[in-house]
């Protein structure tokens, strides 16, 4: 009786273990196929695509996961065959610097331009107009005050 319960417990543990391994594969598999571009229908990842090549690549990824390959190994396998374009997040290297840094450079340039435009012209002229107006008002009020005083 005791041995039976031990056996049951053991089988429970191992099946739970196998399940968690399968779940881990599943999670990694879905993460990978989300990130790999389908080269036939270029604006889809292979998870979304039903193109024959996408189906083959999904099979390949699943098999490599079962073989115990790491995510990096699987990505490198595809990079060696299809190039950086196969990854939706291409690696950061001199050839892709413009891709990764370009938007920030443009943003900085835009901010610089905006700052330059506002500090050069609008703010200064506004200030000038304001101070002129203030002076005029002050002058007028002074005149009025003088007139009141005189009368």
């Amino acid at each position, binding site marked *: 009786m005791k041995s039976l319960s031990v056996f049951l417990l053991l089988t429970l543990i191992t099946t739970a273990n196998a399940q968690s391994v399968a779940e881990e594969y599943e999670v990694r598999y879905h993460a990978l196929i989300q990130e790999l571009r389908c*080269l*036939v229908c*270029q604006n889809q990842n292979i998870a979304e695509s039903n193109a024959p090549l996408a189906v*083959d690549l999904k099979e*390949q990824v699943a098999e490599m996961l079962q073989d115990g390959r790491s995510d990096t190994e699987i990505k490198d396998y595809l990079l060696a065959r*299809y*190039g950086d374009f196969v990854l939706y997040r291409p690696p950061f290297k001199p050839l892709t610097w413009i891709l990764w840094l370009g938007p920030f450079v443009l943003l900085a340039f835009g901010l610089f331009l905006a700052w330059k435009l506002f500090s*050069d012209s609008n703010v200064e002229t506004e200030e000038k107009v304001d101070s002129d107006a203030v002076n005029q008002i002050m002058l007028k009020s002074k005149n009025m005050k003088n007139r009141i005083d005189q009368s």
Partner: protein
Amino acid sequence: MQARFLIPVIVVIGLLGILAIGLTLDPRKVPSPLIGKPAPVFALPKLYQPDQLLTNNDLKGQLALVNVWASWCVACREEHAQIERLSTEFKLRVIGLNYKDKPEDARRWLAQFGNPYSDIAVDEPGRVGIDWGVYGVPETFVIDANGVIRYKHIGPVTASDIETVILPLIAEIQRTDTK
């Protein structure tokens, strides 16, 4: 004062220039990382002698073109006359890689249109195609006598592709290899 109006104009012209260059590029032509590398290892049954294997070693010794094609591929029909010209008119060794196709369909297709290939390897599961980075048939590779991939053409080969790209490249390869 004038510079303030000129700068945006210059920026816009620059952007338009970059976008114009972008329009002339074909996003379907993805540069292959295999250029300059030895042809991937493979061993596939031949279409007409299924008990014999065609391997990457068979590519060596003499310059070869590897043309990836399938009977279901419409653009392959379109380029067929040009592939035939490469083998008959220019006496080049053209090896066919029959990609994700049924051998009987492939044989029927060749019987109908003519067989320009000196040898044909059958890749029915498409695994060797993945190793070669194939993503859209037809694709044509230029392999030098050392078995190194020198060029990859994506899409159907046209007469102008042969004259302006493929033949000059082959002449260049043969000139440097014989030195």
